[in-house]
């Protein structure tokens, strides 16, 4: 989190209905200046709608949006000091890279000298010098992505909105652009609002994550908080992998990497009693699946009949086989109690 806590965008009981459907029930959210905030959730959770309302491309059914203290709820997109990077870039096909980038400045009647200064800056920043005169369709996906970024940044927006900007790219390119985008954001100190359904992307890039489900905010927090202390079953299950163990009236969640496996010493007898900081169960391995860096071990628990999944990192003395009896233990502090 940045030191300055100046609120850049304030959403106040924002609400959106499409026809009869309530897509977003009343919702409040503050976004601070200079932060990288990610809206994370499954498709159809309302994250893109929320972003489009901030951009002005969608009007909220009720509520207010403030940009840098100013009411902008019903301001059209062309009067808002925010810029968006669209999912499939939406570059203008009939214009060159240069014309695309200059478009915003031309619309705002920025003087030619100022235009030239700003375009050279962003072109250097996005390493597009060699492609100035090309048309978008002559560029690769990654280059088009850079043009989209340059076209938005050149306007010096107060907030940059990114709608799954890396969704159309292949895995390797996505990885490297994630790092580029993050360092760009840090360098410029610009407020980023990033929409994605990719939890890994959210965890690696964000200062703060807003997890959304069915239009509602499930949890807001740093990637660390979201991962380690999920507040609902949805968050616990959506981010990373998780085991849910049912108690009388609540669940506990337990990350598979926190579970240790051991030989069952007292076969046929009850396992050793629980100490203060560890927990112990026994079960039978039903399946072991190789994932490269890890083995995923699926265990059928003896007492509850539930299936639990644990990661094994090959640093153990042996690899587990399906059909084996196994003991499980973990630190109690790694348990997360979920009330919803």
């Amino acid at each position, binding site marked *: 989190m940045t030191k300055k806590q100046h609120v850049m965008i304030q959403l106040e009981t924002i609400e959106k209905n499409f026809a009869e459907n309530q897509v977003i029930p009343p919702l409040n959210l503050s976004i601070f200046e200079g932060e990288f905030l990610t809206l994370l959730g499954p498709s159809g959770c309302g994250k893109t709608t929320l972003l489009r309302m901030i*951009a*002005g*491309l969608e009007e909220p059914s009720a509520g207010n949006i403030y940009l840098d203290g100013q009411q902008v709820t019903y301001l*059209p*997109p*062309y009067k808002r000091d*925010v*810029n*968006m990077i*669209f*999912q*499939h870039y*939406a*570059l*203008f*096909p*009939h214009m060159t890279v240069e014309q695309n980038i200059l*478009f*915003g400045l031309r*619309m*705002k009647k920025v003087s030619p000298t100022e235009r030239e200064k700003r375009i050279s800056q962003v072109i250097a920043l996005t390493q597009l010098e060699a492609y100035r005169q*090309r*048309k978008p*369709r*002559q560029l690769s996906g990654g280059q088009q992505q850079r043009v989209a970024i340059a*076209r*938005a940044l050149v*306007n010096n927006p107060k907030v940059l909105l990114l709608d799954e900007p890396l969704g159309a790219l292949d895995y390797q390119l996505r990885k490297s652009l994630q790092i580029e985008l993050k360092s760009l954001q840090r360098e410029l100190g610009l407020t980023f609002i990033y929409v994605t359904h990719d939890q890994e992307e959210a965890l690696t890039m964000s200062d703060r994550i807003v997890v959304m489900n069915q239009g509602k905010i499930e949890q807001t927090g740093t990637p660390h908080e979201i991962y380690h202390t999920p507040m609902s079953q949805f968050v616990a299950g959506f981010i990373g992998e998780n085991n849910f163990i049912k108690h009388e009236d609540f669940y506990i969640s337990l990350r598979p990497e926190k579970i240790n496996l051991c030989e069952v010493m007292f076969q046929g007898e009850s396992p050793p009693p629980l100490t203060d900081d560890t927990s112990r169960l026994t079960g039978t391995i039903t399946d072991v699946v190789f994932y490269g860096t890890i083995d995923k071990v699926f265990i059928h628990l003896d007492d509850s009949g539930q299936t639990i999944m644990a990661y094994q990192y090959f640093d153990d003395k042996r690899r587990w086989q399906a059909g084996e009896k196994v003991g499980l233990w973990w630190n109690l502090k790694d348990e997360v109690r979920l009330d919803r």
Partner: protein
Amino acid sequence: MNKKVLAWPILVWLTLFLTVPLCFVVAVSFIQRSAYGQLIYRFTIQNYLRLIEPLYIQIFIDTLLMAILTTIITFILGYPLAYTITKMNKHLQNIWLVLVMIPFWINSLIRSYAWVIILRSQGLINTLLLSWGIIDQPLALLYNSSSVLLGMVYTQLPFMVLPIYVSLEQLDRRLLEASSDLGATPWKTFWHITLPLTLPGIAAGSILVFISALGMFVVPDIVGGAKSALIGNLIQNQFLSARNWPFGSALSIVLSVFSLILILLYYRVLKVQQTKEVKP
């Protein structure tokens, strides 16, 4: 099975009913005729030389002007219409497209006579204006170049609306959103994004309208009366009343070549646009 077999029926059809007659027309345009209209099989280029007589040059210029005006007016009326249709919901869009196309289903002769009924001295408009006391003499609405233009625009409008509608419909809405996001007012978005990206549709519509307006003879014949003489009417006259097939053929060939050049130009422009985008 060889896929080319499927193309044979249409090839045979085109050969029998287009290529062969066209060859006849070309051939006939180079021979003479007797005073009574019989063809005399002797070579001449007299039929083509006659075309540069001022009378025919004038007719050619009139026809060109009429076709250009028709194209411009159908564009001015057609673009907003197509634009409005694309803004409607799917259901309304279909209704409007059918409305645009309905005139196609009615014989053009009948449609032209409908205009006569509307425009003539005792027609709908004059009767109404007279009975409301707005005028006391019937207006001469029919049998002049305005009525011909009206009839032309009316018959050609769908040819302009449909290609423009298609190109507007294919326009990526996200580009318009991006433009608005980048600070362009709706009017600027239209001017810088929508209009340039629908140019292919405008060009296709204009070519269709212009070329069929060039050869049109039914409409000018019926709503233009005896006074209007466009190339289409001239050709029709040469074949039917004047019985001068060689001259009629020469006129037809000139008109066809002219249209062909326009179509080639259109493809050339399209091609240049595409290669420009491919080459770095």
